[in-house]
């Protein structure tokens, strides 16, 4: 169910609104009624009674665009479709994933497939973090997946990513970390801006049967080759 809030303009804005009402109402009058005292043509505006105008300043570069629906910008995204870490014998097809009802990242049920967080950066992007996660083990796979070897990643390992358009991107591992889940600052992982990078995530640490998940996350950070 969508969360709904009905909002009303707040009182402090009413004064400003009134100002604009006056502005626009008068302005609209210019276009719909006979002008009486308002200059509406260049000759009128340059009437000799006025002091000599200063040189006309350049109009500042205020962005103006059409607000039409067809002008709405929906950025195109080239999703990744596969990932490999040759040093660890990891090969994963990738599925675009989102968020589950509890607000966590969606993970493909099969541990043999990785999930690319489709609301964040793609490896095709020049900034932000592309996040790929896969189960270390899963019920659907009835066993371990390739990311069970992710903790063995070493700085300098190569990560190859294939995009949907057939192009490839190459990264090198710059950090391998294991962190207790409650302590992970996910906002610092799922960045939308800043330098581009690839982050691989799975689970690690101790499996906690009482809550049904591992104690830690394994987080491998890789940067574009040549960056």
């Amino acid at each position: 169910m969508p969360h709904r809030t009905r909002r009303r303009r707040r009182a402090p804005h009413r004064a400003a609104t009134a100002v604009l009402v006056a502005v626009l109402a008068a302005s609209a009058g210019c276009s719909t009624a006979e002008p009486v005292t308002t200059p509406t043509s260049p000759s009128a505006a340059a009437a000799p009674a006025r002091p000599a105008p200063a040189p006309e300043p350049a109009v500042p570069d205020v962005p103006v665009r059409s607000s039409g629906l067809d002008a709405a910008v929906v950025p195109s995204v080239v999703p990744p479709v596969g990932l490999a870490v040759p040093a660890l014998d990891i090969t994963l097809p990738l599925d675009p994933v989102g968020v589950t009802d509890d607000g966590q990242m969606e993970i493909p049920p099969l541990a043999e497939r990785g999930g690319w967080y489709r609301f964040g950066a793609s490896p095709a992007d020049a900034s932000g973090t592309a996040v790929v996660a896969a189960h270390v083990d899963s019920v659907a796979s009835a066993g371990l997946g390739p990311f069970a070897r992710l903790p063995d990643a070493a700085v300098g390992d190569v990560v190859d990513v294939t995009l949907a358009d057939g192009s490839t991107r190459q990264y090198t591992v710059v950090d391998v970390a294991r962190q207790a889940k409650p302590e992970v600052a996910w906002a610092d992982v799922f960045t939308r801006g800043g330098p581009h990078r690839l982050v691989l995530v799975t689970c690690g640490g101790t499996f906690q049967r009482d809550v049904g998940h591992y104690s830690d996350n394994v987080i491998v950070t890789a940067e574009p080759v040549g960056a």
Partner: protein
Amino acid sequence: MHTRLIAGGAAGLALALTTAVPATADNHEAMLSVLHGVPDLTVDVYVNGERTLDDFAPGDLAGPLELAPGTYSVAITAADAADASAPAIGPVDLTLVGGENYTAVAHLDAAGAPTATLFTNDTSTTAAGQGRLTVRHTAAAPAVDVLAGGSPVITNLTNPEEEVLNLPAGTVSAAVAATGTTDPVIGPADVPVREGVNTIVYAWGSLEAGNLQLAIQDIEGLHSAPSGVPSGELGLASDPAPATGWLIGAALLLAAGGTLVASRRTPARVSRD
């Protein structure tokens, strides 16, 4: 890409204009966009004596401008005026509060008279995976319902009110109908609800004149991160753990028909005592 304009006048206000600005200004700045929703009227807009919008046409959306909080003198002239020395109206003062994000909308009221409304845009963080859809009635039309996929999701919205929905990211097939009806007067049209974005949809124009239409404004950068990455279910990769945890996991696997030992590639990592 900043263009900084030092505005004249006794107030000495600095007006910073930018084409790439954060969606959420910090507490020292106000963000202002301006939407022109009055049909058949083209104007110039002067701010602190400087012509800021030239030939501003119906349906145009200007900004966002990143402004130091304060009071700005705004004058509107005919589109062909040489300067603001003989404004059609004004100058008038407009006070903006730091940290807020505004859209000033010139539009028609429900009866068709020109008016304007200053809306404060909701730039609070969106939940991971969600976007925000703000619907504003700025048209010369009676109360409306907004239909999504043919069903009303907003009812009895009147000019110049708004309603805000937080929705899973996706595309909404939206239509506007007189309240209590489902016969669209606008749309249906596909409206993108982007993750981490407040998509503001304005209904503007005049029902009587037959020029009702939609305007779209996006405010990006409201996203938040998922709360976690739950990427393990069985405990097969667990560090040494209580025996009960392991045994239960093994039982689950065996029940599922998994080949437990064969599938494990790093058996030394699991406690088997």
